[in-house]
């Protein structure tokens, strides 16, 4: 079948071929939708991500509790954290598997602030420090006005 101007030729497609092509496209589309749905469901149901969120929430609350404690204290986090690393800074706690920036779960907390001008006075300010990488037992230690995160089995 020639086009009106005769520039190109349209080859008529076989009805059966067109039908099969459409059928293949439909099957591929349905499979793609199922795969995407399952992938999303799997990602969301990942237990590791939930455990990471819970650990971050728990540790942030533990820090707040330690701040409210008049003396020194040592508290062991009761769950296995060997899959994660825990980093504590004066503003937040980050729980991550490999890279804090990529897969880190962060929770903020507010420590009593410090307006000390001198360096000596600043040493008596509240702070939170430490990092523990893939340890089953993680402890939070309050010593004076500093809260540390450390491996519980550390001698």
């Amino acid at each position: 079948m020639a086009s009106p101007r005769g520039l190109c030729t349209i080859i008529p497609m076989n009805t059966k071929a067109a039908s099969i092509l459409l059928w293949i496209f439909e099957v591929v589309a349905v499979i793609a939708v199922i795969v995407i749905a399952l992938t999303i469901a799997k990602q969301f149901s990942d237990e590791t991500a939930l455990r990471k969120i819970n650990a971050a929430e728990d540790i942030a609350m533990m820090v707040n509790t330690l701040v409210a404690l008049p003396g020194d204290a040592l508290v062991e986090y009761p769950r296995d954290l060997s899959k994660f690393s825990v980093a504590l800074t004066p503003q937040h706690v980050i729980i991550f598997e490999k890279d804090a920036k990529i897969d880190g779960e962060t929770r903020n907390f507010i420590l009593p602030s410090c307006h000390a001008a001198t360096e000596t006075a600043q040493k008596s300010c509240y702070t939170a420090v430490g990092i523990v990488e893939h340890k089953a037992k993680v402890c939070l230690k309050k010593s004076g006005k500093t809260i540390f995160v450390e491996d519980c089995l550390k001698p």
Partner: protein
Amino acid sequence: MSEDDIFDVGRKTIYWMIAGFVMAMVMIAYVMIIGGYKARLTEMPNEIKSEFIALRFVNNLDCFAYQDPSTKRVFPFSIDVAKFKEEKRMDKCYLTEKEKGYKTFNFKLSLGQYESVRTNNYFEAPQSQKEYNVLVWDGNKFERDTLLIEVQETLPYIPTDIKQEKEQQQTQKEQQKVQHEFVDNGPKI
């Protein structure tokens, strides 16, 4: 290819365009529903979170808790009136971010006849409250009293009227400060 076959292909193309859009919407809804479920699964009640934060007001000597000067013992669930009256004491104890601090917990503490103390981003929009039975040290002796803590949880935005009021107060303060400086030091030439 007959005319019907051509229309069949055309019909299916239109069908798949609409179906594609509908499927995209369904997938977005699906992600949102599962995401919401996950958030509910890991949700921690705000009452518990605020409880742990509020404990510092009555237990930490850098907040309002009383410390015996001779034994250095800090009395749990106590309030030192001198600290409670001290200006900016709350800022040392619990200071939220200046700009976005209204998105986190803020507190208002009321104790007996004394003036209430607020955190820096408290906008009189309490969502819950708690009461602690405390020992109040007035400088000479302990007295039993009740500390009322009003908790303002996350606010999506600062209430406009309160924001304006706060800005007006700040402007007035600045004007007063300038006037005082002028009276104390005289005009600067």
